[in-house]
């Protein structure tokens, strides 16, 4: 957590209202998100109990496992869930654009993609487990399950994995997104409670949010008091209506909160790089759907050494890129870097647009800009700089002293003898320069999986789900 965020939290505590820590929205918000609130049976790893979900806030769907210990009913639940979720997940595949690639065949990318909104990180983790427990199931053989179950399992696995991918918006944990944009006056632990966090953002914090009688937990765990006083007697009684109604009372308040949270996030204008990241999401979504269509095997239980290293490296690059993009999109996030001296902002007080360096053939146009700033600049001369105001422009720090920073523009001002119009900031313009840049080195060089060294377990056996995967008792 940065000092700016800490300060915002202090302010929130003092004012009794969460404080903004972003000026734009850094996630994509779909016009038609799928809000998904799963509940699980306490004490079990992945036994679903109920789910409220849907794309229409006026018409939530409710599915319930009326006898949660009955394995067949659990599969019937996932089959029903598949019947309702799969059409949504697949509905974006029809409309596509053709993407040309260098040295590779062009491919089709969906114009839009599904978006799963879950209440919290625990909900994402449960979605992953639900995916894990269903994707190896077989529709034939000794323990057959209904058609859609393994397919849904693969989708849920994919979507839960994307939630861990920095900058991806295919699956969002709403408390996480809210905390990325607002600082509440409570700890991160308490922020995981959707009702409590929403109350802070709406400026009416109250301990009621922690009272399970007023605000049932947003799942996937249910309130132990509810379990013993309401659910257990209802299960004992065996009345499906009663169980359904009881679970509805636990889900409806969260359902309303989820849509309110989406409304709140929507009040923020979308950050400039969000569309670019969503494009990656759309590509990933199309790629996954293609794998499914081509009959690829379900995701392995665990990655091999090379796959794990390459995943880690992809994630690290995505994280670095996401951090830089957010700073470029949002002055409030750039402020963190200004505070630490890696960026500075101020007013242009002097320019020398037709400054040249070198002689003869190596004579180059290097416009000079002097910026007056109050920020503590801790950068040595020669530092390479970029600027959110002119993406693609490169500059180099010449000298910084007494609140004045001189820099020269090295890239992105045209090839002529004079700078392209608008490429050099005017005197009086507010500008920000930073050492953060989004052009990272390419992918780490990793061996092909077949060449995995013995120190890393040697080449992995190709993953073929076996009978055990399919039969694994689910009881």
């Amino acid at each position, binding site marked *: 957590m940065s000092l700016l965020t800490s300060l915002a939290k202090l302010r929130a505590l003092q004012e009794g209202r969460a404080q903004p820590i972003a000026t734009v929205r850094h996630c994509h918000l779909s016009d038609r998100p799928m809000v998904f609130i799963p509940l699980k049976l306490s004490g079990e790893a992945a036994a679903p109990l109920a789910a409220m979900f849907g794309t229409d806030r006026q018409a939530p769907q409710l599915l319930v496992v009326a006898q949660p210990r009955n394995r067949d009913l659990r599969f019937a639940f996932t089959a029903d869930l598949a019947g309702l979720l799969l059409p949504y997940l697949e509905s974006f595949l029809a409309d596509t654009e053709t993407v040309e690639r260098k040295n590779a065949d062009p491919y089709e990318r969906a114009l839009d993609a599904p978006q799963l909104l879950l209440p919290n990180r625990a909900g994402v983790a449960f979605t992953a487990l639900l995916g894990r427990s269903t994707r190896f199931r077989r529709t034939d053989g*000794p*323990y057959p399950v209904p058609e859609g179950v393994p397919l849904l399992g693969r989708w849920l696995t994919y979507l839960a994995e994307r939630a861990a991918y920095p900058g991806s918006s295919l699956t969002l944990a709403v408390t996480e997104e809210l905390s990325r944009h607002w600082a509440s006056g409570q700890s991160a632990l308490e922020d995981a409670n959707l009702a409590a966090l929403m109350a802070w953002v709406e400026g009416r914090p109250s301990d009621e949010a922690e009272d*399970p*009688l007023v605000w049932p937990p947003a799942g996937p765990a249910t309130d132990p*008091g*509810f379990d*013993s*006083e*309401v659910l257990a*007697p209802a299960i004992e*009684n*065996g*009345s499906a*209506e*009663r169980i359904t*109604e009881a679970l509805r*009372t636990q889900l409806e308040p969260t359902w309303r909160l989820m849509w309110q949270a989406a409304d709140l996030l929507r009040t923020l204008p979308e950050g400039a790089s969000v569309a670019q990241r969503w494009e990656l999401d759309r590509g990933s979504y199309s790629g996954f759907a293609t794998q499914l269509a081509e009959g690829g095997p379900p995701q392995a239980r665990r990655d091999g050494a090379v796959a794990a290293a390459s995943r880690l490296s992809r994630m690290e690059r995505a994280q670095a890129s996401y951090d830089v993009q957010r700073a470029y999109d949002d002055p409030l996030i750039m402020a963190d870097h200004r505070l630490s001296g890696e960026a500075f902002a101020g007013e242009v007080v002097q320019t020398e647009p037709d400054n040249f360096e070198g002689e003869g053939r190596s004579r180059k146009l290097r416009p000079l800009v002097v910026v007056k700033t109050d920020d503590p600049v801790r950068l040595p001369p020669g530092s390479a700089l970029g600027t959110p105001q002119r993406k693609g422009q490169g500059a180099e720090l010449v000298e910084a002293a007494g609140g004045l920073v001189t820099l020269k523009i090295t890239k992105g001002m045209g090839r002529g003898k004079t700078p392209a119009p608008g490429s050099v900031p005017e005197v009086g313009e507010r500008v920000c320069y930073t050492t953060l840049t989004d052009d990272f080195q390419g992918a780490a060089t990793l061996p092909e999986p077949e060449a995995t060294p013995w120190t890393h377990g040697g080449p992995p056996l190709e993953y073929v789900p076996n*009978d*055990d995967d399919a*039969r694994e*008792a689910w009881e």
Partner: protein
Amino acid sequence: MSDRLDQLERRIDELRAGVRRAMRARDAVTARALRADLRAAERTWDSLVSSPVQTPGGKRAGATTVRERVHQALDALGAPAQPRLIVAVSEAFFSGGLRSAQLTSIRRDEERSFRSSPYGRPYYLCAALTDRLSPARGLLTLSAWPLERRVVGPLSPRVDFLTCAAAVAQHIQRSAGPSPESLRLVARMGRNIPGGELVELGKDVDPGRVAEMALAELAVHLDRDTRDRAELAARAREQLDDPARLFGAALLSAANVGALGKEGITA
């Protein structure tokens, strides 16, 4: 009617909240009172909203009683066993229909019957005896068995498990078309016997192999276990009257502990 339902639902919600509030304040008296009201309201709601609820599961096999089915299973196993295993064996080889819950009070009922008219029944379902000669928790035996089989020393739980596994396997070998339940049971038991690591759940399993493995490990423990049991049985004959021999002596108090057992107590 829907007005009435709405009203009931509101009342149920209030009562539920009340109960949970009382529970949180650990106010058991209020909670109990509210819970009673709540159950009543819920019953009314149920009767208004749905057709009468079916109670699940009629008895499967007609005439046999619970005690007969337990006897059948124990007789097949030939060693002291826990309710869980008795239920599984009944399910695998006989009519099934037993539930563990039915077995929790059975020993007490048998003891009561024995005390009111001793040996009035051809057999009794009775206790296994520990090295304190008290009833062992959760084990059932048959009165017809020799005391040596009904007492349990330190090695006996393992010996009895292996005996049971061999018995289950041999029972399958003798039967014409083994049930899926019996194959699952023998696979589950076989997995926990050395050499059975490769037995996979749900895969076809060779009962003959499981019996062999069980008997092989049994050979390792049998001498010592037989000695221990003989010693315990002799002590039981010496010290216990008839009902206690069948159902175990009451747990010992501090005063008479010193007299018993090779372990001695150093308290």
